[in-house]
């Protein structure tokens, strides 16, 4: 088992920089998730760890060993991919053993490892079957088994659940989380799915355009995003952003927009004061918007009258869409909500949950109560 260290790692294709000055320490036995939209550099980063992409500059360590020039086969890592290709003419046992045979591992040792991995993955009863006779979930387990038998220092997983249907994906998500506790190995996991990232990672690296935007625990990313991109990427539906002018009236700070006039809470005054009479971005999560009578009554200043454009009943809740000053806003309201499509409705923004961002830099203005994870 080993941790990983990136020191100023850069990856370029010709003059095109795809990973910029990547600095990160992944702890031994940590489950670290790289997440971001397509083209953000997460898979390239994973492939640099695997040795499948050369590092243009910087240093990469697995444990204490500098591996920039170490061949992929000598890095002691195992990979699991989205498309779990198996050898069709081999049994499950042979599929799991094949990689070890290539590495000239003694037969008895191969037998021990395959049996043990099969036991961990609960596929002992499938060992004699051919891949064609397996379900999608079972095949993915075999693919995991092929990685486990290597007993690597680090597991690299590149969107391993993307090919599975929604139900199986949820099931396998839990299986992998359970597995990592049993294996006690460092895992670097790539996904574009923020739900997967939030539910599985000890820490998450949010990337965009080859840059790390934030490295943090799932809850810190949700509660204390560093900038608008992270705030918008983590959470579903994503955070609403509204351009407002910050003004001081009657001793309070107000967020002013042609569609509303909302007070900022007193605790943010100090951080927001430099922005008085300037435009800033006001961020509010859909789940921080309420329409129940008690909340509206308790917080009359936070109430906004809106025109409901679309209403999506989701069962346990309703997604309600409306516009404020031509900006679309989504509210995640309780299923008991009385909101009706194409009618006016009163909602209240929980200003305790409001986030503020600098117009120019798009960085968050203040992160009250934020504590770094490590």
């Amino acid at each position, binding site marked *: 088992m080993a941790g990983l260290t990136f020191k100023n790692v850069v990856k370029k*294709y*010709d003059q095109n920089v*795809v990973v910029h000055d990547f600095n990160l320490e992944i702890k031994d036995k940590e489950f670290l998730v790289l997440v971001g939209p397509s083209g953000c550099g997460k898979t390239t980063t994973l492939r640099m760890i*695997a*040795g*499948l*992409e050369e590092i243009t500059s910087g240093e990469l360590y697995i444990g204490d060993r500098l591996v920039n020039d170490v*061949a*992929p*086969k000598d*890095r002691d890592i*195992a*990979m*699991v*991919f*989205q*498309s779990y*290709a198996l*050898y*069709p*003419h*081999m049994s499950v046992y042979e599929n799991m053993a*094949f*990689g070890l045979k*290539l590495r000239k591992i003694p037969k008895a040792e191969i037998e021990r490892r395959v049996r043990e991995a099969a036991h961990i993955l609960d596929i002992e009863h499938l060992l004699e079957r051919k891949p064609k006779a397996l379900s999608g979930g079972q095949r993915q387990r075999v693919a995991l088994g*092929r*990685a486990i038998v290597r007993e690597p220092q680090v597991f690299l997983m590149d969107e391993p659940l993307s090919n599975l249907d929604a139900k199986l994906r949820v099931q396998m998500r839990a299986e992998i989380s359970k597995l990592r506790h049993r294996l006690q190995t460092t895992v670097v996991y790539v996904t574009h799915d923020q739900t997967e990232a939030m539910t599985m990672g000890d820490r998450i690296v949010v990337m965009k355009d080859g840059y790390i935007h934030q490295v943090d625990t799932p809850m810190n990313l949700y509660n204390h995003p560093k900038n*608008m*991109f992270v705030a*918008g990427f983590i959470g579903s539906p994503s955070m609403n*952003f509204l*351009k407002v002018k910050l003004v001081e009236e009657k001793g309070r700070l107000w967020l002013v927009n042609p569609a509303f006039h909302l007070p900022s809470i007193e605790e943010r005054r100090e951080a927001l004061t430099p922005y008085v009479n300037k435009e800033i*971005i006001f961020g509010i999560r859909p789940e921080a918007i309420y329409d129940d009578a008690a909340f509206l009554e308790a917080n009359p200043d936070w109430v906004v009258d809106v025109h409901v454009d679309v209403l999506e009943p989701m069962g346990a809740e309703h997604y309600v869409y409306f516009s404020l000053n*031509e*900006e*679309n806003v989504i509210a995640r309201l309780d299923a008991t909500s009385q909101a009706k499509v194409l009618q006016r409705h009163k909602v209240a923004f929980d200003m305790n949950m409001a986030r503020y961002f600098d117009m120019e830099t*798009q960085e968050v203005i203040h992160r009250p109560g934020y504590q770094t994870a490590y």
Partner: protein
Amino acid sequence: MKKNDGSQRDDGLQLNEPNPFLLQELCTRLKQESGLEFSPWTAQDAPSRLTVLQSDGVDKDIRILLRFNSEEGEVELASLVPEGIVPGKLVSRLVSALGRAIYAELQREAKQFAPTWTWEKLLGVAVEQQWDEAFFEQKATEYALPMLPLGFPVLIRCQNWRSEIPMVIENLLPQHDVFWVYRQELFLFVRAETSETRTDKIDELLVWGKSLIQQIHNMLADELGILASVYVGSPCDGLWQGYKEVHQLVKLQTRFFPGEAGLVAWKLGLAGLLGEISPTAIQHYRQEMLKERLSPELIETLETYFAHDLSISETARALFIHRNTLLYRLDRVTEFTGYNPREFAAAVQLYLAVWLQRHDQKA
């Protein structure tokens, strides 16, 4: 020596004519048997050939002509006889009979030890000698090579080569009909999982064909730590055409998709079309459209705008900017380029230019 009807190629195979190696061997063995030096009848011999034929085997220059028909064509050898000896018709006929017997023996030996022709061997010769498709097909028919089923031509190019690569691929894709390792490249013809060609099955077939890229790429990466690019040609039953197609894909990938794990022939989109155009022409077009003044910010704005189907509100949301800011930026694009991205025809032109800016490595 051999019939030359003008269609002969310099390919070294001599399938329709007597094998030159056999003729040489025939000369050697004739010398052993008769003590006479024979050599293949050449074009320079043509004037005297007429004379020889007229005199039924013996010419005025006292030459013996050995002449008979074999399975591969007409065998013709000539030999000068020692001074002072005048060979008659009988000698000539006896030598021809001897030659025919030796040649038949040589043919039997050649057949016994001749290597069996395979698709792989034929490809090897065809690539070395740069055949065209028609000639390749002709040779495949002559060698009676088995017909190929519907399948995908696949080319695998590895960044490094290891001897285990063919073994991994053979096990991953056991349904291959052709498996040819050539200069650290692997070319396969992989039988399609279904031979159905009905329209509703074609889509399924193409999905499977496309999945070959990830299957091969990932397996080599995982099993051997080898980075490979995989090129999959259109489903076909013609090997040479498929071989050429996958090599064309290599060029397109180098030019337009250098970071990709591979390409399939039926998903090239604009690259398939623009790959035919010279880089200079493309560069001129791109410069004319975008000028040098379009900033990275405006390029990104255009890309996001196109990615969101020209929707102002969706684009503004994706870029985290106010819609008025977006409108201002689009106006700037119009001002710089003369093309208004909010008009369909102009948007198409700008889309193409932005696409080229992003993808064409040569422009």
